[in-house]
């Protein structure tokens, strides 16, 4: 695996100019999580309306992979029904475990660029951090 296949253009782009960075003033979901291996942190805010993700923001300190993953995730999630977002989260995790077929991952769009992270086992947790925070945060919500 080359560096280029890990740090694809779309990842570098989101890393350098992350979308949806910031906070929501009165979020419906606010969750902080960290990666015990490296100390990377993320705080994710969601505002929900009629079962949809009306807005989503994140803050955190982390590597290119974790920041790009969070940025791409928020971009995908904005406006989505919560149920669909949860399905995407499952698919993304499956992809990172190498268990997803390519027709399954297609709807993830640009996020497929993160599939290369699989070849760098210690970095998988970086890619998953935002997604784990999301899943933990919406646990029990419908």
């Amino acid at each position: 695996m080359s560096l280029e296949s890990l740090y694809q253009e779309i990842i570098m782009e989101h890393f350098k100019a992350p979308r949806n960075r910031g906070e929501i003033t009165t979020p419906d979901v606010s969750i902080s999580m960290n990666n015990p291996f490296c100390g990377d942190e993320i705080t994710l805010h969601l505002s929900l309306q009629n079962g949809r993700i009306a807005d989503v923001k994140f803050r955190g300190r982390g590597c290119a992979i974790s920041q790009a993953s969070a940025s791409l995730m928020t971009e995908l999630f904005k406006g989505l029904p919560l149920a669909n977002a949860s399905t995407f989260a499952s698919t993304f995790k499956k992809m990172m475990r190498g268990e997803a077929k390519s027709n399954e991952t297609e709807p993830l769009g640009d996020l497929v660029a993160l599939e290369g992270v699989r070849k760098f086992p210690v970095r998988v947790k970086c890619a998953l951090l935002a997604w784990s925070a999301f899943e933990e945060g919406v646990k029990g919500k419908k």
Partner: protein
Amino acid sequence: MSFDPVRVRAEFPIFSRKIRGKEIAYLDSAATSQKPAAVIDAMDAFYREHNSNVHRGAYVLSEEATAMFEETRGKVAKFIGAPSGDGIVYVRNTTEAINLVACAWGRKYLKAGDEILLTEMEHHSNFVPWHQLVKDKGLVLRHIPITDEGRLDLAALDRVLTKKTRLVSICHASNVLGTINPVAEITAAAHRAGALCLVDGAQAVPHMRVDVAAIGCDFYAFSAHKMCGPTGIGVLWARPELLKDMDPFMVGGETIVEVHLDHSTFRDPPHRYEPGTPAIAEVAGLEAAIAWLEKTGIDAVHAHEASVTAYALKRLLEIPRLTFYGPRTGPRGGVACFTLDDLHPHDLATCLDQDNVCIRAGHHCAQPLMRRLGVVATARASFYVYTLPSEIDRLIESLNRAREFFGCR
């Protein structure tokens, strides 16, 4: 015999391995060291020729294993300047050694209001066992702060070392900053205050001559795996008088004199603290590691590391936008912690791995220190007896490639 780094390095089989067709620049010895053939072979020979359980067998194999196991205590003692093997307790690693003291000594002697003094630069292994004890017993934790250069701020000692301090527990050398702490001086201060002193020697014993008698401390802990020895074995040295009266920690076979259905009585130390079948082959490996370090000369090891470290610092500090953590001058250990521009250390480490340059990225099990330094993680290159200046050159080249790749200014 003068120290020849190339010849020394040739004694480590792992360096003949090539990954992606290239040699490995292993710059993560502070995490664990590589092992010379002499150590690997000693364990091999134990299993092939002497393997048996210790202490009970009235046959040759067991007598050989027992003699090796017990005689190694004396050799370990000699290596760290302890008067005899009586104070040598075999444990799994430094972490277990500190847990042992926290439980067997701390639970017995400490009471609500008593204070324990640590430093801001400790490894998690010298924080967490005390956190447990503090919670259970109502103790008070204090910390010696560090200066901006990364040394202990001894001016603050008067304030944090109080009449209530019962134990000072500090690292001999920092695994992040490379700082070598004045442990003899701190032990003397602890004793004047009526406290005992535990020294975490995980980053010292592998790299420099340690003399617990000269330090004067009461407990000293280290791991074999960082000093050319195997995993699974470490040492707690303690003053035999202290060991004698401490409570048992883990218990079972080997730790007892008599077992009845409903109670048991305990043996004298060190065996009281060694429950069940011990790490026997690992003791053979530890013995071989000590013999190898003595043959190579621990002072020569230290001098070699000092020169490699000085070279690494010089080269690193030439890199634009590199932030370096820890003392830049004076005697220090062979670790170099840094961050580069706004590049995350993880990304850096992954880049370097492409060139087979193995460094560590993260909090190095020192989160409180990371907070003090105002970072979440750093990159760390660490050096040992087998590190060559050419590996430092590879590190620097690789860092420059990473800067380019990520478009650093």
